[in-house]
């Protein structure tokens, strides 16, 4: 069974890392979680990002955050990845697509062009 003692151990481990994370974490993964996003399947997408990032040990490189409706409801689930001022918009994202986005974009800095809004609206 999970116990609060386990949580205390996570705290110990994390405390040293908190400062590092605030300075780094230069990639921001933003998932739209308004009614339109949720209906289109944003919840499993968000979950897949958090799990994938943690499993791959990328928590210091990227942070996952949520936002409301960004006005592209027909393309939901929409995920925007910010690197400083640069932004890549992925549309109609599924939990299956998340694996490749993490592997190619987050890990290796290579945009998965075929999942972007540019490819979708062509």
């Amino acid at each position: 069974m999970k116990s609060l003692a386990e949580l205390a151990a996570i705290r110990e481990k994390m405390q040293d890392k908190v400062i590092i994370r605030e300075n780094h974490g230069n990639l921001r993964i933003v998932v739209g979680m308004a009614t339109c996003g949720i209906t289109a399947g944003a919840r499993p997408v968000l979950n897949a990002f958090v799990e994938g990032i943690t499993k791959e040990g990328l928590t210091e490189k990227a942070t996952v955050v949520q936002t409301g409706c960004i006005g592209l409801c027909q393309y939901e689930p929409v995920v925007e990845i910010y690197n400083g001022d640069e932004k890549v918009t992925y549309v109609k994202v599924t939990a299956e697509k998340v694996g490749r986005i993490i592997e190619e974009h987050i890990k290796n800095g290579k945009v998965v062009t075929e999942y972007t809004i540019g490819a979708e609206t062509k």
Partner: protein
Amino acid sequence: MKELSLNILDIAMNSVKAGAKNVSLILNESENEFSFSVTDDGCGMTEEFLKRVTDPFCTTRTTRKVGMGIPFLKLIAEQTGGHISITSRAESEYPDSHGTTTTAYFNKNHIDCLPLGDIVSTVFTLIQGSPNIDFEFKHIFEGRGEVSLSTKALREVLGDVGLDCPEVALWIKEYLEEQYSEVKKYKI
């Protein structure tokens, strides 16, 4: 939406947007009935807004002029012979005791009742997205036990490590999943 848990997430997001500091999610399940309520201490709604809130053309969103969250909830409750109830006190009128409670009742065995779905993901998503809000989650299975989680209690253990720290968020998920598998052992 194909799962009740997605509607619960959507309704709870309204509490987040209303600037709540505390949100409680209570699910109650008996042999024939299922209900859930979301209570918050957010900015609330005026009586006039509350009257129009089930109208799809009533919304606070700024990107377009329709809001489907509450109308969806009303539809899926009523299609099982159930109903919804919303009470609210606006901050402008009740500066010390404002907030909203939204409750939906379902006849669980009605053919049109949606499955609850992945409620653990809903709780996970809420905490991950709003690590500074205190969530109280309880799923009561009448006569069988309950699943519960209070972020206040977790915060005491975590100190200054945030609830959105991915390792913590995943721990919360597993913690809830374990409780669910315990309750399900005692099926009547």
